[in-house]
Every structure is written in C-alpha cells, then in structure tokens.
C-alpha cells in the first residue's frame, strides 16, 4: 500500500519541489499551507508521515507539532526547515518530532528520513 505524506509549508515553491521528490519515489502527497489546514488534513487524510515547516504564518510549526502529538501521540512528524541551528534541531527532537531536515533538502537524504519515519515512526539515528 502506498504511503501517504502530508506536506505542510506556507511556501508554494517548497511544497512543489518537495512534492516532486516524494511523488518521484512513489509516495502519495497531500498538502496544507498553514497550521490550521494541517490539523484538519491530518484527521481527514490520515497520513503516515507529516513533513512540517517551522516558520509559517499563523500557527508556527512547533505549535502544530504539539497539537498533532496531543491529538495523536503516534503522529510521525518530520520537521523540514531553513533554520540550521543545532539548538533548533534539539528543540524539535525534544518536542517529539520524528526527524529534522534542513532546507534546501538533499533529495536522497529526504527520502531516507521519510522512509525511516514511515517504517519505524522516527528517523533519529
């Protein structure tokens, strides 16, 4: 069965380029352009993994992550962010994310992280 990824990013460019990588690898992709839409889509689409941007208009990524995990403790959420700080990565891991990728993401690295998150619920090595 094809795994489904929910892509959450307020940048249409980022969503397009990430969608291309994921669909090219055979994933089914659904999108949300902000936090509120992401929460709605999560319960409608029931994705296997969420790829979540951190800095967005409206709800920030960490709020979305907290909300998803509160509503579904099994939610597998990989953060994809331009924020390269080590402290941000640690914060995201402590908040229960399944993984962390920096933008611009290397396609193969993204696919490896998503595959691990789909398979075992997290991708931290």
């Amino acid at each position, binding site marked *: 069965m094809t795994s489904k990824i929910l892509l959450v990013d*307020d*940048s*249409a*460019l*980022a969503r397009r380029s990430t969608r291309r990588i994921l669909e090219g690898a055979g994933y089914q992709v659904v999108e949300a352009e902000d936090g509120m839409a992401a929460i709605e889509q999560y319960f409608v689409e029931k994705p296997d993994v969420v790829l979540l941007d951190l*800095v*967005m*208009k409206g709800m920030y990524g960490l709020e979305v992550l907290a909300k998803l995990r509160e509503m579904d403790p099994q939610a597998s959420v990989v953060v994809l*962010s*331009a*924020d*390269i*700080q*080590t*402290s*941000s990565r640690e914060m995201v891991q402590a908040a229960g994310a399944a993984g962390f990728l920096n*933008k*611009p993401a*290397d396609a193969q690295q993204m696919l490896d992280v998503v595959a691990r998150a789909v398979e075992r619920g997290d991708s931290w090595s």
Partner: protein
Amino acid sequence: MELTALQQDALIELLSIGFGRAAASLSQLTGHRVVLEVPQVSVHPIATLDSALRSLVSDEVASVHQIFSGPVAGDALLILDYKAAGMLKELLTDEAPLPLPLDASAREVLTEVGNILLNACLGTFGNLLQVQVSFSVPQLNLDSLSEILRSLMVNREGLRYGLVVHAGFRLRDAEVTGYLVIVLSVASLDRLIRSVEAWEQGQS
C-alpha cells in the same frame, strides 16, 4: 560608533562562515557553483543607512525581510536588484522572468530563497556564538530602497545603528549580486560585538 580593526576582522571571519553556508545552500538550490567575495562590514547611523546602501544597489530592489530575536535582535534583509531577482527565478524554475511586480512565481522563489539564505547566515551565527536566534515569517518587498529602510524605522525608536554587510556572489559566470543588511539597536550591536570577540578568543 566605529568598529576597531580587531572587531572588524572577527566579524568578517564570522560572516564569511555564515555567507559560506548561505552560498552552499544557494549552490544546492540552483545546481551551479557560487563564487563568493569577502564580506565587507561597516556600521552606519540609521540616518545615513540609505546613502550607504545606495552605493551598492540601484533604487528599485527586491528585498526579503526577517525580524530576528534572541540575545541579539534586529532586522535582516536580503537585497537584490530586479535583474538579479529575475535571474534567480530563471535558474530555479527554468521559466523566463516577467517584470517582477507581475511575476508571482518569481516572488515565491525570492521569498523562499531569502528565507533559506537569511537562516543560513544568521543561524550560523547562532551556532557559532551559541545563542538561539528566532525568525519571523519572511516578507518580500518590491520597493525603493528608501521606502524599505523607512518602513523598518516605524515604531523602532531603539534602532540607532545599522550594521551593513555586503558580499557579492556570482552564479554561472553571471553576476547575480546580493547584499545582506542587518539592522540592530545599539544594545544588540554591542552584544553582537562582545559575542563575536568572545568567539574569536575561543578560536585562538
């Protein structure tokens, strides 16, 4: 307020690392080698910031603006002239650029590129100086340089000095030149300089 030679050296070293990270990101995005110039850094009173930048860019510019906060706080801008902005869009989408105010796709590209480059540069500072920097949602502006700088000053009485950093970068033999401008209050500028000095001493 002027930087000492030692402070300038330390800031340039730090900025080179940050810009290097940004250049690597830009290279990865475009698939082309990026050649980077040594960053130039200077401090200007806010009132003279416009004339300081006017020597670098033409009046109509595309800028991506992010507010950053933390122990060091202020505004960061990536500034490109329209020609450079159009070239970036072409490199990233294979689509010919339209006049920038009409080109929604180009505006999308610039906002995301600006987001990545500003985060790469300032995030590197955060890592090296061991401070957490938080960022606002990036905003793209297509306006005159004067108007962009004026809008930064609204309700910001604490902003007295602007740290101007500029580094040219070239893509694919073409001259796409961008500038990073950081605007800080006196207190934040002082903290940044102290953090950089402490970092630089830790390096030796």
